[in-house]
C-alpha cells in the first residue's frame, strides 16, 4: 500500500505525541498535582492514529474513558487538552470536564466518555446526521473489549445495520476491562457478534500502524460509500494500569515488559519506514524533539494557567434559560 510521505510524517508525529503526552501524565499524576481519574492510552497509539488518518474534521468520532489518544489523533489541541486535565480555564472544556470528558466538536470529536459503551449509540446519531445531511462524513466509535458487552453497544450494532449507517465500530481489544480479562468477560467472538448482525467485519494488528491504516482504510471507505456499517477489531495491549494507581497484579510478571519490547508501535513504525527507506531516521528524530518540546510547554502552560472563574460554575447548563 502506498502511503504519502506527509501522511507518514503526520501519523508518526501523532503517535509520538500520544506516547509522550501519556508518559508525562504518568509522571505528573504521581506527584499528586493532577486531579481525578486518568486512564492512559500508551501502547495503543497506532489504533487511534491509523484510523483517524482516514478522517477529516468533517467526520465524527466518539471516544472512551481512555480518550487522550483519540483526541490527539483527531487533531484536538494538545495544550488545551493538558490544561483541561489540570482543570484550568484554558482547557478545551474550560476545566469543567477533565480527562474523561475532553471533547471538541469543531474537530469532529464527540467526546471522551465516562460511561462505558456511551459512544456507540452517539455514533449512530452522528452517522445519521452525516447520512441525512449528505455531507459524505462517516462516524467512528472507539470502544473497548469490555464495552463490547454493554447492551448499548450491541443495540447500536443492530441499529446501525438496520439504518445502513455510515458508521465504523472500532473495538480496541486490549484483553482487559479493568482487572478482568476478556477471555472471562466476552462470550463468543467479536467476529461472530458482527456476523450476528450481518455486519462487515475486519481485524488488524493494533501495534502496527500499517496494518491499522490499511484495514481502517477499507472499513471507512466501505462505510463512506453507503454500503453500511463495519466492525473493525483492533488487537492491542495497554501498558499502564487500568487507571493511574492500578498495580496490575492480574497480569503475568513480564507481560507488559515483553509487549513494550516486541510490540511497541513506534519501534515497529520506525523499523518499517527506515528499512524500506520511506523516511529518513533524522526526520523521525526531529519529530521526537519537536514533540518533547510541545508536551513540555503544554505542561508548563497548564500549570501556569488560571483556574476557572467562579461564574463558570453556573454557566452553560443550558443554551437558553
Amino acid at each position, binding site marked *: 500500500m502506498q502511503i504519502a510521505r506527509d501522511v507518514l510524517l503526520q501519523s508518526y508525529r501523532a503517535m509520538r505525541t500520544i506516547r509522550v503526552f501519556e508518559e508525562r501524565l504518568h509522571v505528573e499524576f504521581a506527584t499528586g498535582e493532577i486531579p481525578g481519574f486518568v486512564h492512559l492510552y500508551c501502547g495503543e497509539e497506532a489504533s487511534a492514529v491509523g484510523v483517524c488518518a482516514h478522517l477529516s474534521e468533517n467526520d465524527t468520532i466518539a471516544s472512551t474513558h481512555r480518550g487522550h489518544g483519540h483526541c490527539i489523533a483527531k487533531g484536538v489541541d494538545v495544550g488545551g487538552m493538558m490544561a483541561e486535565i489540570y482543570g484550568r480555564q484554558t482547557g478545551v472544556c474550560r*476545566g469543567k470536564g477533565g480527562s474523561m*470528558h475532553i471533547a471538541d466538536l469543531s474537530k469532529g470529536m464527540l467526546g471522551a466518555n465516562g460511561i462505558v*459503551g456511551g459512544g456507540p449509540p452517539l455514533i449512530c446519531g452522528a452517522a445519521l446526521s452525516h447520512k441525512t445531511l449528505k455531507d459524505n462524513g462517516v462516524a467512528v466509535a472507539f470502544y473497548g473489549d469490555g464495552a463490547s458487552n454493554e447492551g448499548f453497544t450491541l443495540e447500536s450494532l443492530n441499529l446501525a445495520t438496520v439504518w445502513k449507517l455510515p458508521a465504523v465500530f472500532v473495538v480496541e481489544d486490549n484483553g482487559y476491562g479493568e482487572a478482568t480479562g476478556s477471555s*472471562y468477560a466476552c462470550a463468543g467472538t467479536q467476529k461472530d457478534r458482527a456476523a450476528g448482525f450481518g455486519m462487515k467485519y475486519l481485524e488488524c494488528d493494533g501495534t502496527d500502524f500499517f496494518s491499522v491504516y490499511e484495514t481502517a482504510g477499507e472499513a471507512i471507505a466501505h462505510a463512506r460509500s453507503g454500503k453500511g456499517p463495519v466492525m473493525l477489531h483492533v488487537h492491542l495491549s495497554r501498558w499502564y494500569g487500568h487507571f493511574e494507581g492500578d498495580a496490575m497484579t492480574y*497480569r*503475568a510478571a513480564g507481560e507488559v515488559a515483553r509487549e513494550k519490547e516486541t510490540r511497541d508501535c513506534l519501534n515497529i513504525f520506525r523499523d518499517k519506514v527506515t528499512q524500506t527507506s520511506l523516511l529518513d531516521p533524522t526526520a523521525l528524530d526531529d519529530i521526537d524533539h519537536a514533540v518533547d518540546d510541545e508536551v513540555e510547554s503544554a505542561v508548563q502552560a497548564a500549570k501556569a494557567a488560571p483556574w*476557572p472563574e467562579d461564574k463558570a460554575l*453556573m454557566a452553560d447548563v443550558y443554551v437558553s434559560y
Partner: protein
Amino acid sequence: MSKKSFRQAINEALRQEMRRDPHVVLMGEDIAGGQGGTSGVTDAWGGVLGVTKGLYTEFGPERVLDTPISEAAYIGAAAGAAATGLRPVAELMFVDFIGSCLDQVLNQAAKFRYMFGGKARTPMVIRAMYGAGFNAAAQHSQSLYPLFTHIPGLKVVIPSSPYEAKGLLIEAIRDDDPVIFLENKVMYDDEEDVPDEAYTIPFGEANLTREGQDVTIVAIGRMVGMANEAADRLEKQGITCTVIDPRTTSPLDEQTILECVAETGRLVVVDESSPRCNMACDISALVAEQAFHTLKAPIKRVVPPHTPVPFSTPLEKLYMPSADKIEAAVKSLMKQHTHEVA
C-alpha cells in the same frame, strides 16, 4: 469493638452476612478482579476501591461473581435471583451508572411486590458509590438518592459513618425489599469504633447526633459530618443545634424531624444532591405542611446549584455544601425577624 474504616465496616458486614446466610451472593464488576487475567492472581482488586477485597478468597466464585460490563443484565439478574430464592448484593460501582440499568430497578425490582398482589419478595441490595469532592467530574460524582427515593417499592439507605454503614448494610441484606445502599466515595478511609460482631440498625429511625435549642439541621450521608462540624463552631458562638441523620430517605423518619423542629422552631436541610426535587425539598415540604405553625423563621436549604458536577477543583469546591455554608445558613436564620409562636 475496634477502630474500623468505612471500607472495612462494609467489608465486614458483607463477610458476616455471607457466613451467616448461604443465600447471600455478591455480583459486580471487578468485585474480585483477575478473572481471565494472565497472572492467575484472583481477588486482584476486590472492587474498584478495594471494598470487597478478600471475599472472593473466602467464599469463592459461586458466591462472589464478577460480571462483564453489562449492568442491565446483572442488575436485572440480581432482581430475578432475589425473587427466586437468593439474596444478592449487587455492586453498581458508581451510582451514575444507574443510567445503564434503570429499567431493572424502576420497572422491575421496585414493582414486583405491588404488581404481583403481594406475592413476591425481592430481597436484593444494590451498593453504589455516590457524591462529589473527588474530582471525578459530571458522570462519576452524582448523588442520585432522590431519584430512588421517588420510586415506590425501593428502600434507600445513606450511611453517614463506619458504624452506621455496618449496621445499616446488615439490615439491608436481611430486609426483604429491594434496597439501594449508597456509599460516599470520599468517606472510605474515615474511621471510628465499630463493634466486631454483627448488629443491625433499623430503617426509618433517624439518629440525633446532637441536641440543641436553636436550630434543627437535617443532613444526609456525608453532610452529617459537615453539619456536626458547623454545630461545634456555632456552639462556641452560643447557638445550639440539633443534628438529625435520617439514615434512610425511604422510609423517612418524619416523626423525629417534626418533633425536633417543634422544639427548635428553625430548620436547615443539608443535601448534596441536585437541588430540584431533592431530599431538601421533600423534607421542607413535610415541615411546611405539618409543622408550619412551629416555625420561627423560613426553612433554609444548603444544597448545590442546579448544575452538573464540575471537574475543576475550585469549581467543585464552590459547588459542594460545606461546614462554612451550613454555619452561614444557621446564622442567617438566627438573624431573621421571628414571629412569636403562640
